């Protein structure tokens, strides 16, 4: 019964009976994400993103007076000259076609024109017109999109800092989000598909999803660390780790549910349709959602712990908890109690801490 064991697993994660030391082993995760980010930078630097016709403009060929407006011959004609190119073909009016490709050299253009004239049975001299086409997604659009994104990230950061009352948390979320974006871009560059406006939209969606997911996970952290400084049993890091473990089931469920439809589109888009909006979009989304959900747990929260443990109050608290724990163990006093305290970060019904929870009588 897989279902039962999954639920039991969730139960154990919730109580802290079973716990993955994600926060404690944060160096490992930092190293992993750091390596991925570095690799992405490397890929981006060496391979670069190949910008599509929407960003760079290209060659436009108009074919007029055709008897058939079928698009296949046009696509074949272009592919016959430039392999792997995905021309954009549209019917204009009733007897003309518009074919847009990446910028072609003069020889390529001449070759395409000849093939087109042959394919459609028209005169290459009078019925085929070649011109350049500018970017639909020009500098102006990019600039405004960039400013919009910067403004929204700043606003989201401000919102988080106010909501959690901790700017370090907000910083951790933003840094992890940037890592998500970097890694997604790296994967995209590695595969080498053309960047289209759809890709950009995909990356913006990743940005939104990543921040959203971090918000949900951090809200659990916030819930758990509420009043952490007022008790002496657990440290900030332990509480945060418990939060990550408790939200693990939710994160897995959410990522699966978000990834299934996107995965469906990616599968269909990449295998059946070839290049196009759907494929570009779903790839960036698939990678981004997976990385975004993972980084909420493995990067954002550990990063938050690392940052917040620098806060003097939390630093002092952690030190005092650890010192007391060490002291309790060495004096051999309440050893069992100390053990149960640590595992009992989440209060478990039917179990209480006994006299250990009472104020300790001062020793003379």
């Amino acid at each position: 019964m897989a279902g039962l064991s999954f639920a039991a697993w969730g139960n154990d994660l919730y109580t802290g009976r079973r716990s993955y030391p994600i926060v404690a082993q944060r160096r490992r995760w930092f190293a992993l994400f750091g390596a991925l980010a570095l690799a992405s930078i490397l890929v981006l630097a060496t391979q670069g993103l190949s910008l599509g016709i929407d960003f760079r403009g290209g060659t436009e060929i108009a074919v007029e007076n055709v008897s058939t407006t079928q698009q296949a011959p046009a696509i074949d004609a272009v592919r016959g000259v430039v392999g792997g190119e995905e021309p954009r073909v549209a019917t204009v009016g009733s007897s003309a076609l518009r074919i847009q490709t990446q910028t072609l050299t003069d020889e390529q253009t001449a070759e395409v024109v000849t093939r087109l004239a042959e394919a459609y049975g028209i005169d290459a001299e009078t019925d085929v017109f070649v011109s350049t086409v500018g970017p639909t997604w020009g500098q102006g659009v990019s600039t405004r999109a960039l400013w919009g994104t910067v403004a929204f990230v700043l606003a989201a950061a401000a919102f988080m800092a106010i909501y959690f009352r901790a700017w370090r948390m907000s910083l951790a979320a933003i840094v992890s989000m940037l890592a998500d974006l970097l890694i997604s871009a790296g994967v995209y560059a590695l595969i080498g598909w053309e960047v289209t406006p759809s890709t950009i939209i995909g990356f913006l969606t990743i940005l939104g999803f990543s921040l959203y997911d971090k918000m949900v996970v951090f809200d659990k952290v916030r819930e758990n660390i509420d009043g952490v400084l007022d008790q002496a049993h657990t440290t900030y890091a332990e509480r945060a780790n418990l939060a990550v473990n408790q939200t693990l089931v939710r994160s897995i469920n959410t990522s699966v549910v978000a990834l299934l439809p996107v995965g469906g589109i990616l599968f269909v888009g990449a295998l059946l349709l070839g290049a196009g909006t759907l494929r570009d979009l779903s790839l960036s989304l698939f990678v981004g959602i997976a990385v975004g959900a993972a980084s909420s747990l493995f990067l954002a929260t550990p990063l938050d712990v690392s940052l917040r443990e620098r806060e003097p109050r939390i630093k002092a608290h952690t030190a005092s908890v650890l010192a007391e724990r060490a002291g309790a163990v060495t004096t051999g006093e309440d050893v069992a109690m100390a053990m149960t305290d640590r595992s009992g970060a989440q209060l478990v019904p039917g179990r209480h801490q006994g006299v250990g929870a009472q104020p300790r009588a001062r020793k003379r």
Partner: protein
Amino acid sequence: MATSDARRPRPVRTLVLFTVLTVLLPFAGLVTATMVDGAGSDNPGGASLTPALALDLEGGTQIILTPTATDGSAITDESIEQSIDVIRQRIDANGVTEAEITRQGGQNIVVGIPGDPDQATVDLVSQPAQMRFRPVLAYEMGTPAPDVDPSADPSGEPAEEPPAERGTPADASDLAWITPEVQEQFDALDCTDEANLRGGGGGGDDPAKPLVACTQDGSLKYVLGPVEVDGSSISSASSGLMPGPNGTVTNEWGVFLELDSQGAEQFAQTSQRLFGFGQGDVRNQFAIVLDGLVVSAPGITTPITDGRAQISGSFTAESAATLANQLSFGALPLQFEVQSQETISATLGSEQLRTGLIAGLIGLLLVVVYSLFQYRTLGLLTVASLVVAGAITYVAIALLSYAMDYRLSLPGVAGLIVAIGFTADSFIVYFERIRDELRNGRSLRSAVERGWLRARRTIYAAKAVNLISAVILYYLAVGGVQGFAFTLGLTTIIDVMVVVWFTHPVMVLLTKVPFFRDGHRLSGFNRERLTISGTRARYAGAGRVAMSATIAEEAAAEAATGAPPSGSAPGGSATPSRGPLPAAATDASGGRLTIAERRAAERRATERRAAERRAAETEEGR
């Protein structure tokens, strides 16, 4: 069940209200709109039961604009780029249509607009909308003056007045601007000729020189002084019904302008001077010139110092809105001519949309399977909520494509599919919180109550981030990004509505159904699955302690072997190490043990463990 709480939740009422307000009412509205103003070939902007599609999916109209060289302005790369920016802003301000604007060849601008645009839209993209304010020097009927004697025309009285002082004019209202050449030009101008009514803005008229111009309808012609206030000083423009005297509203449409501080100052000076001429004087008038044609030439009854101007004229609601939109984003630096206007097919085949939708449906089906697996019967609530959210989204998009000219592009469709993830997450967060509370040993009813309070906070906070991003991107970005932001904001709002007004009330109702309340094996709230293994028992009230057989057996087995059921994660300071497991509180038949019996069982278990350890050590020792 008797709660005397004043804020007692009334799930049924909420559900009914929600269904009526957000599902039935919009749908009824949509159907009505379709009946009253249905879309058809003659009414492309009408309502339809299906959402309108964007350029990439449906095709539309391709308008090719060619700049016409007018004196005073050169066609440069810069001015073309600037024109593209202005055109894009104008289109975006008109709705979320996601038009495609490119440069073609050296100078042409290609504007792709989804659907079949009306004349107002074509004007919107092609007219420069260069607005200038000039003082009136003279005016006359719109026909050319007979060559013999211009003084015969009674209305041309000021024009034939011989300018008193020749030489350099003192200010813009100085009649010295009317030089013999200007006079000649004025006399020859025939405003009944269509060619003279096409306008020639975009730098066609030199702002520093006087202008001879017709009115838009060709009834009058004017001699105007140099430009006093330029259109670039307009900070905002809006359209509406003109206010009449005594605060009434007239039936006449007009455009309201607000000038920036510099423009307001210039305007104040000018109106002060014109006011000085006194009412009835020709030069008391102030001509508003749009693209070289006089829109109106009101007299100044009081000096205008606050930088607010109203333009009335022969506007319709639509043309006033178009002009306001044009003025808001400044003039095109060039004059354009519509070279061709042709229909264009979709750049992405209908195949892409169909395959995308099929893929999305398959994904959705997998989501259903997964949530049924994860949450058993409760998964059906997720599915129902998703269906409700989908229905609302569909109706909202169909309504918005009617009201705001919203168009669904392929990235938009993909955005909606991704929204499934966002939306489902709300339910997952909620269900998991309820389960957490159940694990804490609460009854289902109080678990739902408490879980909702905690989940709600998380959901609101997380959705707020989404909404912030949507609003900011919508206002700052253009084109496709704006469309994306719109979709994101729309789905976020619908998502929150569904969780608060559908999922939660249904959940509250479900707590009353015995199947869920008692935690049936398939309900998703099964106690056995959610009771914490390792805890002894849950106090069930009335002196009874509930303890499931499975857990008891497991605990007994664990106690017996001393081994955890599956490997616990390894060390690290944060790893809570488990304390010794308590022995089973029940015997094999499920009856409660006395304390003495339990102690005996514990002792037996310890001994057995010790024996096993010894055995293992000897094993190793060999």
